[in-house]
């Protein structure tokens, strides 16, 4: 399942929901949470705004999730990405992969976040003391 939303997400509730959907079949769940850092490239960040391409974003995330489910034997998966204005320490993205086998869960989760970072149409704009700037690829995490 994928979701793009302005509001926050609750990692525990999402993990719990997937666990319940799996009901005894999973064995291993791996989650990745991306957070807004208060420092990026040496500069103090007071706010971050995430722009995206509505429509294409959802398609891109669905494709990434589908690829992960093709390559690995998953019992459940989830991608949630926030958009809009965020503060340091806020959640940005959540990726969960559940599988019978822990290696598969780790690999699928890492694949989904790695692919999202290069293929999903999101753009970060940071507010610094000197003004705003668009984040360059590879500059962040």
């Amino acid at each position, binding site marked *: 399942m994928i979701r793009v939303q302005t509001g926050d997400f609750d990692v525990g509730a999402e993990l719990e929901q997937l666990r319940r959907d799996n009901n005894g079949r999973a064995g291993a769940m791996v989650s990745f949470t*991306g957070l807004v850092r208060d420092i990026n490239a040496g500069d103090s960040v007071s706010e971050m705004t*995430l*722009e*995206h*391409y509505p*429509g*294409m974003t959802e*398609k891109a995330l669905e494709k990434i999730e589908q690829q992960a489910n093709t390559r690995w034997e998953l019992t459940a998966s989830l991608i949630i*990405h926030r958009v809009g204005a965020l503060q340091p320490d806020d959640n*940005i*993205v959540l990726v969960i992969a559940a599988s019978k086998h822990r290696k598969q869960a780790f690999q699928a989760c890492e694949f989904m*976040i790695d692919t*999202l*970072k*290069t*293929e*999903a*149409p*999101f*753009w*970060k*704009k940071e507010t610094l003391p000197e003004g705003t700037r*668009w*984040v*360059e*690829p590879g*500059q*962040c*995490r």
Partner: protein
Amino acid sequence: MVHLRYFASLREQLGTGEEQVELPSNITDISGLTRWLQTREEPWKSALADSRLHVAINQEIVRPDAPVTDGDEVAWFPPVTGG
């Protein structure tokens, strides 16, 4: 008509996020469409000259030689930085 969209830093440079234009009959692919938009006054020429820009047709990333047809949604944007 084609629906043109611009995102992030490119949107800010161009001062617009989207527009509807009549596709000139001699334009058949992304390269041609980009060059045609660059004939507008600055900042169009320099902003669209950035070789790192990606282009999507109907929300799928395409290469510069991809064909454009009437009714398409075409988007230009800088490298993505989500996640």
